[in-house]
């Protein structure tokens, strides 16, 4: 499996995401935001956490309009896989690849701590390695993780099993405690918690490992 990981000015989880992919057995090519095309032959593009472009204007808004993101949109629209974590989730909603928006946390505070998540569907290449309803612990670190969408969108996400993860104790006011959502074809995942920060015993937990493992298992390069 070959993954591309994008770095924007202000990304700070790009290396961690690359290491998580590599530890799961993937080959990783790092990509700069000014690059106009993704490497040939990749299976998935990872959009990391951080504060791209200083969170200016809106979190993820400037990154979503960067040269590389135009090819991310093309890649995903052609059936490519994309994983956006934290700021990466914000970027994916700003590109329109995922519906809804991430607003300021309801409590207005930056939240940085491990949180409980429930796995809401195992019917995706990202969550297949978990069991339905499994409770896992994954760190969050964000100021703008309050997932908001209109009721039609929420109903569609629920109805099509596109909610990947929910918070056990909603820390940020997200609609229906949504922590991560999938695209209609289940190939694009955006989530606020950081699975790449819990893939090694030294991280204090390894509940993120199954996500990267199942991706690598499913996306074996042809």
């Amino acid at each position, binding site marked *: 499996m070959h993954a591309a990981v994008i770095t924007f000015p202000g990304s700070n989880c790009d290396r961690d995401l690359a290491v998580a992919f590599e530890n799961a057995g993937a080959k990783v090519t790092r990509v700069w935001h000014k690059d106009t095309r993704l490497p040939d032959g990749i299976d998935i593009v990872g959009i990391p956490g951080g504060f791209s472009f200083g969170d200016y*204007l*809106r979190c993820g*808004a*400037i990154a979503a*309009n960067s040269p590389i993101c135009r090819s991310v949109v093309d890649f995903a629209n052609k059936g490519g896989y994309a994983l956006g974590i934290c700021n990466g989730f914000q970027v994916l*909603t*700003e590109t329109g690849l995922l*519906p*809804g*928006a991430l*607003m*300021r*946390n*309801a*409590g*207005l505070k930056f939240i940085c701590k491990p949180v409980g998540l429930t796995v809401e569907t195992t019917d995706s290449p990202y969550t297949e390695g978990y069991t339905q309803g499994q409770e896992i612990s994954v760190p969050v670190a964000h100021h703008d993780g*309050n997932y*908001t*969408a209109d009721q039609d969108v929420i109903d569609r996400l629920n109805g099509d099993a596109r909610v990947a993860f929910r918070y056990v104790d909603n820390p940020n*006011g997200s609609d229906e405690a949504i922590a991560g959502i999938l695209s209609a074809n289940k190939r694009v995942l955006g989530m606020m918690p950081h699975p790449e920060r819990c893939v090694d015993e030294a991280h204090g937990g390894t509940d993120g490992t199954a996500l990267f493992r199942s991706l690598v298992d499913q996306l074996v390069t042809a």
Partner: protein
Amino acid sequence: MKARVHVMLKTGVLDPQGEAVRHALGALGFDGVEGVRQGKVIELDLAEGTSKETVEQMCEKLLANTVIERFDIEIG
């Protein structure tokens, strides 16, 4: 020419920052503040003759997130 873009959260979208400002005003003794909504003002210096439609496109593509925000444009 100048254009001024006002970006506000849509009606019905909760504004936690506006709520915090409302509480702070109450704490300062200003009674009767029933609601506060916080938005952005963006001033654009534009080449003469830039159309309002172009500014609208700027808003739709970048300046506002129309999932949660609405915008008003003042030209001049």
